[in-house]
């Protein structure tokens, strides 16, 4: 087996295993820390897909930002870690059956379809291309994204501040 194939298997196993830990762990702290493996594994998959910039963004924003936020929220609401995590919206068995059937259908659809192939698969640095696209054809969505981020920042501050009642 080639070394790259072995590494690919390792990354895939880390990703899927960590995601399974998130889904099945009974302790929310374990779930939150397993997210680290899932996000890091997805970044590794992006590297295999030749998307170096997206992999770096994934590490910076998911691992460096969202994961820290989630851990922050878990620690600030620590009393829920003891018992309530076993409370369920739907039972585990019905959920397992529904998602199992769904996974079977998805995998069958993936394997049964003949996907369009590009003429050649190229591996080259993507940062310059992405920068050009952001400032040319995707300029309006790019500006809208900055507005959305500003609104989200102000919204988060407004929602989470202590309300002063007169």
């Amino acid at each position: 087996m080639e070394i790259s194939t072995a590494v690919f298997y390792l990354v895939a196993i880390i990703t899927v295993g960590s995601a399974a830990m998130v889904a099945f762990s009974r302790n929310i702290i374990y779930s939150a820390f397993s997210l680290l493996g899932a996000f890091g594994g997805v970044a590794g998959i992006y590297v295999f897909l030749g998307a170096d910039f997206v992999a770096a963004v994934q590490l910076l924003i998911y691992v460096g930002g969202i994961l820290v936020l989630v851990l922050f929220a878990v620690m600030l609401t620590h009393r829920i870690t003891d018992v309530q995590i076993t409370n369920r919206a739907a039972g585990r068995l019905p959920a397992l059956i529904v998602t199992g059937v769904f996974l079977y259908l998805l995998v069958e659809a993936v394997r049964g379809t003949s996907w369009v192939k590009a003429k050649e698969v190229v591996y080259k640095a993507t940062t310059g291309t992405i920068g050009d696209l952001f400032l040319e054809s995707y300029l309006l969505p790019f500006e809208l994204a900055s507005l959305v981020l500003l609104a989200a920042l102000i919204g988060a501050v407004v929602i989470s501040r202590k309300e002063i009642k007169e």
Partner: protein
Amino acid sequence: MFSPSDLSSYLIIGAILFVLGLFTVLTRRNAISVLMGVELILNSANINYVAFSHFSSGNSDGQIYAIFVIMLAAAEAAVGLAIVLAIFQIFHTIDVEAAETLKE
């Protein structure tokens, strides 16, 4: 069949991640766990975007969409967790069913 140079192996990893995220959202009443499941689902969609961009289209548009999804996920996590903390201050629990009346 399951190799790094095959599109369907990436799609299957994405499908597994999506299903695990869906399972998390379905079985948890803890609001933070539900948000974790949503993050897994967004990651699986991103894998599909980047995989199709790499194997099928030959240009970088899919990666642009993946970056937009990551950006929206960050905004969603910030606002969602702020709401969770506000719910915790009012109800002293983050069970999503406690907040279903939307009032104290």
